[in-house]
């Protein structure tokens, strides 16, 4: 049955959602930001440690669906060791991947994040995949206000 569901819920995604990496609140983060999805009540908080311009550690705490947990979990793995600039650029590419927007190159350096590409066929779920990323950017920018999905 090809209804996109097995593309959306790939095993690696289920694995990340069941065993999220870098999961739980952080006591000593340099930066943190919360994301809320007012439509569904899902919440995520992203915690970052910075060493100069480099993200030395990333953690998250959340309640949410498989897509949002997997996306947040993969994100924390991917941005560790990256510069602020690189992390933001990665979000741009990830955003292009999950929205399927023309004109934006998804790029080969997305690695495991590629498994979330199935989201583009489920428009109502894009915000699930991007919420943690928006919180990450807000944490880097030092925004005080909670991030909300549009």
């Amino acid at each position, binding site marked *: 049955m090809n209804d996109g*569901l097995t593309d959306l*819920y790939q095993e690696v995604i289920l694995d990340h959602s069941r065993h999220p990496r870098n999961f739980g609140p952080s006591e000593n983060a340099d930066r943190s930001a919360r994301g809320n999805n007012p439509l*569904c*009540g899902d919440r995520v908080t992203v915690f970052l440690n910075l060493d100069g311009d480099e993200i030395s550690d990333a953690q998250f705490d959340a309640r949410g669906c498989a897509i949002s947990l997997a996306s947040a979990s993969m994100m924390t793995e991917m941005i560790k060791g990256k510069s602020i600039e690189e992390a933001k650029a990665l979000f741009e590419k990830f955003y292009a991947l999950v929205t399927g927007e023309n004109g934006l190159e998804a790029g080969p350096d997305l690695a495991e994040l590629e498994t979330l590409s199935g989201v583009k066929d489920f428009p109502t779920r894009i915000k*699930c995949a991007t919420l943690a990323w928006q919180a990450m950017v807000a944490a880097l920018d030092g925004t005080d206000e909670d991030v909300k999905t549009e």
Partner: protein
Amino acid sequence: MATNAIVTPAFDVERVRQDFPILSEEVYGKPLVYFDSGASAQKPRAVIDAISNVYETEYANVHRGVHYMSQKATDAMEAARETVRAFINARDIREVIFVRGATEGINLVASSWGRQNLLAGDEIILSVLEHHSNIVPWQLIAEQTGAVLKVVPVSDDGALDMNAYADLMSDKTKMVAITHVSNALGTIAPVEEIIRIAHERGVPVLLDGCQAAPHMALDMQALDVDFYVFSGHKIYGPSGIGVLYGKAELLEAMPPYHGGGEMIDVVTFEKTTYADLPFKFEAGTPHISGIIGMGAGIEYINALGLENIAAHEHELLEYGTTKLSEINSLKIIGTAPEKTAILSFVLETVHPHDVGTILDREGIAVRTGHHCAQPIMDRFDIAATIRASIGMYNTRDEIDVLVAGLGRVQEIFGR
């Protein structure tokens, strides 16, 4: 009894389904299975036709010009007001105010009645079951007046804690605003007792009837309720129209909510006198086709018989409760003894959104999320539920499709 009597079923769901054109639509190549009537009900042909008929044969502005079409539209709209009055057994058509929906009705009462009657320290009693539309308007007026909100809790099955309600009632209580039926759980509140206890202290009661009006007979005079609101789109009529019922003596004492045309008697720049009820609260050109369409929805319900509809839905509730209870790892949220046909549930290991997406691909429309009732979600320490809300056109077969869909969820997440 004659032996050859023909037994006609009180309610023939297959015939009812034929009245709803959208039910023959397909979703991802599968028949639409619509279990989201609690959010908004689908429309029967009678309502769709009534709305087009307005624009094709009887449309003009109402309560204005002397011309033929204006009179025809006015007559049709006012006939719908009488249909609503009879539907809820109000004493007088002056007590039937047309609003955009239940939300506007509650805002009207909170704002107009509240500004006139609430002082700092006064208390408004709500319940933890409330939809945000019966919380936020009261918070807004509380901020302006210094009034305080008090919240009736529920027990673990989702039934209101009536002892706590009686304890919350005090000399400071000025209003009780409670949902008749919970949209998230289906719990039916013991409204007669709620009203009796409030009236012992002379406190008025507003009931949010959005989830009650499609499923049970309403009688404003027998209930002796002070304000009652419901929305047209949940009783198989169009969206953007609803009803505020209020006792005439309360409505007469309240200041207007919106100012404009139709709600006036005489206007000069020095002073304006207001029109009589119901027009005092109906500023501006109303949703004419919506009102007539809502009237057609009520007539459609009346023709089938609300008791027959309720019996059919209750049978599906029992069948669905049994079938869902057989699923391991599924927990029904809201098991009060008195409830309407709402099946709200969670799965142990799969988030409601993921369930909703998978069911959607099976053609099944359910609501997933907090149902605009975050306090009751917090009460059960969950972020969201999956809600299958049953309407008059649902069938046992559709419950089976839902159960099979949940099997697909477990298959995908069981890998």
